[in-house]
């Protein structure tokens, strides 16, 4: 085959259409979308175990007109999230680079990894510093938080950080399916689904139900994206 066989004859519309096709094919070939979903799903399930064996610590209590306000956080669990998330993004970056190299391509995963690690560090710092008291200075709002404050607090968690970083990955990959998944995942994180299960569990297991849902959503989506990629490759 020679270049004549693929000549566009200088037709600008066809040349431009070809560049778009080539660009799309490269981006599809670079995708390893199932990997971050699988790894972050495993990290989320790991958090359930860590939460079960660790205790929250209450410090800095002060009495206000509205009632007593304390800083409550679980240093073991939050440290787990920080270390596990950084390790997860290192694994994801390595996986993306390895797969892209094997396919004969470079990778554009770096901004996603930077966003993910930055989100993990930011969430850890905010929670460790007890930033809720600065973000919502009015004690009445803290003791009886409105829906918008609850949504904000749920966003400023490790699970929220995972969702935000996935939006960055969807943009990098120009991946509409991943964008829709990331928005759906964020909806699950921000507007918790309550099936009634876990409501009668002990205080130690509180929040485990939400982590199970988040982890399952990530793992199922990872399996779905892996299957879709396999089907596409076999065509």
């Amino acid at each position, binding site marked *: *085959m020679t270049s004549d066989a693929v000549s566009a004859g200088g037709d600008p519309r066809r040349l*431009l259409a070809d560049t778009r096709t080539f660009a799309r094919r490269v981006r599809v070939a670079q995708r390893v979308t199932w990997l971050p979903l699988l790894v972050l799903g495993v990290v989320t399930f790991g958090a359930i175990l860590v939460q079960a064996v660790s205790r929250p610590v209450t410090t800095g209590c002060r009495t206000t007109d509205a009632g007593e306000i304390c800083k409550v956080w679980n240093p073991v669990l939050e440290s787990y999230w920080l270390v596990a998330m950084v390790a997860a993004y290192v694994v994801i970056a390595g996986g993306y680079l390895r797969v892209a190299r094997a396919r004969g391509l470079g990778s554009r995963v770096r901004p996603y990894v930077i966003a993910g690690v930055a989100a993990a560090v930011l969430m850890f710092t905010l929670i460790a510093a007890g930033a809720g008291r600065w973000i919502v200075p009015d004690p009445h709002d803290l003791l009886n938080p409105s829906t918008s404050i609850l949504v904000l607090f749920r966003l400023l968690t490790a699970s929220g950080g995972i969702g935000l970083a996935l939006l960055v990955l969807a943009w990098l990959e120009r991946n509409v399916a991943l964008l829709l998944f990331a928005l759906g995942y964020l909806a699950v994180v921000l507007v918790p689904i309550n099936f009634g299960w876990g409501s009668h569990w002990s205080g130690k297991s509180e929040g485990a139900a939400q982590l199970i849902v988040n982890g399952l959503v990530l793992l199922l989506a990872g399996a779905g994206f892996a299957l879709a990629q396999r089907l596409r490759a076999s065509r």
Partner: protein
Amino acid sequence: MTGPVDTPAPESHPVTGLDDVVHQRVRLGILTIAHEARRVEFGFLRTELGLTGGNLSQHLAVLETAGLVGIEKGYEGKRGRTWISLTTAGDAALAAEIARLKQLIARVETTVPRQGEAS
């Protein structure tokens, strides 16, 4: 003595700005793929563009001579691999070519009468 007088340049036809090195499907394809992939292996380009190795090498030589791509040869185990990446000039040439193609299409769409209006 008077200085140079700024006169508006007549609007040139987009065709006059086309770069012969870039305005060709295969070479435009190489630049596009290298731009999207950051760096691309010879085998991927050959498969995507449907070319023989010799033919692709000729196109790469033209682009390398023009300073639009960099070619790096190495080994992975015992297997030789050739990686192609865009230079800064290549990046600019690709952007300019795409802009000119869009201009050309826009010009054609505004000057060619639609069907039914010609009569």
